[in-house]
């Protein structure tokens, strides 16, 4: 009985220590994310066969959301072939930015439609 009791107390302390560690870790993470603004979603409208301009600074981790207001399907295709997003007529499609740099892109269906994403490293 004694042995069992001791053992139970011991396990209890270990759990407490683990829980404390998790708590401290969670607090640290929370502190880090509070100091950095959350990754944002930036909208690019497609209207009359034109990609709207991006007027904010893009960072790795941000998401682009293309909103296609046209009656025909379009794509946002990186010239360097890194990504190829199809945006059906009247729909939306997203891309998470994974690499910093300047990316020229176009629509594969209507190659006269061109755009550019300038992506800074993650904040």
């Amino acid at each position, binding site marked *: 009985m004694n042995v069992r009791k001791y053992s139970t107390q011991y396990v209890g302390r270990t759990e407490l220590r683990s829980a404390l560690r998790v708590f401290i870790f969670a607090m640290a993470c929370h502190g880090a994310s509070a100091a950095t603004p959350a990754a944002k979603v930036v909208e690019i409208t497609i209207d*009359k*066969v*034109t990609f709207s301009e991006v007027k904010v600074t893009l960072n790795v981790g941000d998401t682009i959301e293309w909103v296609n207001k*046209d009656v*025909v399907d379009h794509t946002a295709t990186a010239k360097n072939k890194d990504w190829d997003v199809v945006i059906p007529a009247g729909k939306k499609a997203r891309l998470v930015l994974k690499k910093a740099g300047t990316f020229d892109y176009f629509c594969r*269906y209507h*190659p006269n439609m061109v755009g550019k994403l300038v992506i800074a490293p993650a904040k």
Partner: protein
Amino acid sequence: MFRKLSPALAVLLVSSAAVFAQGGTKPTDPQIAHIAYTAGQLDIEAAQQALKISQNKDIRAFAEQMVKDHTAVNKQALDLCAKLKVKPEDNDTSKALSKQAADKRAELGKLGGSAFDKAYIANEVEYHKTVNGALEKTLIPSTTNAELKSLLQTGLKIFQGHLQHAEHLATLVK
């Protein structure tokens, strides 16, 4: 008004790509709507022929896109005409376009394999050049209704995209 141009137009039609009236009397909005709709419809028919004959993946994808895009733009045009109470009016340019397209389909229908693919995409380049030129120089400047004009301007951008796409494909099809 438009009929006065027909003899001159007929000559142009047979001899060259200058299917559309240039200078002289301007076409009316109902005639313009009819021409634009017909031009789209004819490209859909050309694409449907390509989908029956071609085995080339890129050609088929292009043809499918032509069906989808022109169907969508034509639906938008018809909806707008209904809203504006504009009744598309048949005219000699629409008739000539249809005749020319029927002749082309008959010509292409005799081909198969890569010969068809090359002829189809070459015709798509020429056809879009002709229609886009007409939209830009004659039809859009002659359109009086602002909404119809705007629709045709967006249509022109879409068709200019088709032209670039077709030109690119033409370099790939051997």
